[in-house]
């Protein structure tokens, strides 16, 4: 009994396949013949996944069965969008269950080999993400959801591949000009302001409350004003990014500079260490975890700020400009392609900052792990 409980995804998949016999064929106007390879693949996968003992063999069988079946299901939809029968949905659910079983099997693998471990750690989330896209594709195709509401990922990918020059120009305009410049200046200015606020108490008393106020200003309100001040090109977007990133950096650095312990400060005092020496050798290193916190927060804020700011006037290039105009022209696949680019760029940006953090604050308990 326990073997069925452990393999409940396979058992349920088998039951769904059997149920689907009642509703064949899988698309209401197509020929029934194409559905048999799908059924055979799924049955083989479900049975093989339970019967085989070896983890590698089980994974291989499940992988081939789930992906082969779903590939056949998706190709059956070509020219028959929106005509899926209950049988289609049952078989789709069965394929998905087998993929689920595959991820479960892979997640349970404990290996000592570093390379296999890294490969698994990358492959499992990849599989997970791929199935999100597969289900999206199948549901949009099978249920015939209108293109303007939600285009299938295949259409987005095709649009992406065909618009590389446009996307590259948009990335260049928005990320390499507005975001990077604004991020650098905003974070740098916030950092310097924090040092000044730390050195002169009246600055800290006066600047921080105003900082909190300004950081609460709505970006929607600021962006058009910045466009009026600095023109339509990327400079006005960079200004919005500077305003958005300045205060997280200021507040975090001020907090971080207070993070060094009393004993360590007393120690520096016994050495008759000056303000700047204590800052460089004790307080700034101790503040680094806080500073990197701000850098990470700002990496996301900067991207949002630049894209939203482009909604309020821009030359005919830029990610925000593209999103707002292509939505107006019902080219939602282009909008989704632009969103994918933004997500990718944001992840890379965040990842680079996080890697730098690991290198700089390697000593912090949260990173050295103990």
């Amino acid at each position: 009994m326990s073997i069925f409980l452990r393999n409940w995804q396979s058992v349920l998949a088998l039951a769904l396949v059997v149920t689907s016999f009642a509703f064949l064929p899988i698309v209401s106007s197509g020929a029934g013949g194409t559905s048999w390879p799908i059924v055979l693949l799924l049955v083989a996968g479900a049975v093989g996944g339970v019967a085989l003992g070896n983890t590698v063999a089980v994974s291989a069988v499940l992988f081939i069965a789930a992906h082969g079946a779903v590939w056949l299901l998706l190709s059956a939809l070509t020219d028959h969008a929106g005509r899926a029968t209950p049988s289609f949905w049952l078989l789709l659910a069965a394929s998905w269950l087998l993929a689920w079983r595959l991820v479960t099997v892979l997640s349970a693998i404990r290996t000592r080999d570093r390379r296999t471990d890294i490969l698994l750690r990358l492959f499992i989330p990849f599989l997970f993400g791929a199935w999100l896209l597969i289900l999206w594709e199948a549901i949009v195709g099978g249920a015939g959801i209108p293109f303007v509401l939600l285009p299938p990922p295949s259409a987005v990918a095709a649009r992406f591949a065909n618009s590389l020059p446009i996307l590259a120009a948009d990335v260049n305009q928005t990320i390499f000009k507005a975001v990077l410049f604004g991020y650098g200046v905003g974070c740098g200015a916030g950092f310097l302001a924090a040092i000044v606020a730390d050195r002169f108490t009246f600055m800290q008393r006066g600047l921080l409350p105003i900082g909190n106020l300004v950081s609460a200003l709505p970006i929607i309100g600021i962006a058009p004003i910045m466009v009026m001040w600095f023109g339509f090109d990327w400079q006005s977007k960079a200004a919005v990014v500077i305003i958005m990133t300045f205060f997280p950096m200021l507040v975090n650095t001020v907090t971080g500079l207070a993070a060094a312990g009393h004993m360590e400060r007393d120690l520096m005092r016994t050495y008759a260490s000056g303000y700047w020496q204590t800052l460089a050798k004790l307080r700034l290193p101790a503040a680094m975890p806080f500073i990197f916190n701000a850098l990470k927060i700002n990496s996301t804020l900067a991207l949002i700020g630049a894209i939203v700011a482009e909604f309020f006037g821009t030359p005919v290039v830029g990610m925000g400009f593209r999103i707002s105009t292509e939505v107006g022209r019902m080219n939602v696949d282009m909008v989704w392609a632009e969103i994918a680019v933004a997500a990718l760029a944001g992840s890379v940006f965040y990842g680079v900052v996080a890697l730098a953090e690991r290198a700089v604050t390697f000593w912090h308990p949260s990173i050295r792990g103990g």
Partner: protein
Amino acid sequence: MTASQNSVVEARGLGLTFDTGDGQVHALSNVNLTINKGEFVSFIGPSGCGKTTFLRVIADLEQPTAGTITVNGRSPREAREQRAYGYVFQAAGLFPWRTIERNVALPLEIMGYSKEEIGQRIHRTLELVNLTGFEKKYPWQLSGGMQQRASIARALAFDADLLLMDEPFGALDEIVRDHLNEQLLKLWARTEKTIGFVTHSIPEAVYLSTKIVVMSPRPGRVTDVIESDLPRERPLDIRETPEFLAIAARVRDGLRAGHSYED
């Protein structure tokens, strides 16, 4: 005030009162004490007796509110600015982003020693505390006892004749502590420094010191100063001898006397 030629610390009528929200706290009251060159002076007493506060006054980390104190014949502030002492805190307080050798180099960098000089001193002081071979380790990769030894090396790295230690071994287990006490005595013999040492352990105070200052709380004051006549060369088993036990008994009596008015 007649400070003799070889007195390092000279306190006369020293008092320190903290103003807290609950009123005044008399941390130190009318403390008179002389620490001579080359002495090993222990401060012992229950918590709140002001032994740490007194050490911090010597180090110019607290300001007295009454009386006078001189360190090397100057004010504590001048002495601190001339880097007259090394201070070892209750915890090692090593910077986790620096390796052991960079931690030892910290005071030397601040005081502007040359690169070669820093290298030599790191080598010498780490050898002195038996940490050779751990130069490239980070503090969090070492045991508590080794970390505390590294912090002692850091205090020894520059040329201060006075070493102030505030319960440096308080957080360590007894075996490690015995070992470090033994090493500290050897180190004291080799370097001929003057040491001020705060502790709440009677055996530790008697084993280490040439002079034991017994203190009592509320207000913090000196109740007894015991000159130890034990030889300078002290193996660990000296703690079983009648001479040792006699001094320990006197310290215990002094501590009890300080407490008696509370009963």
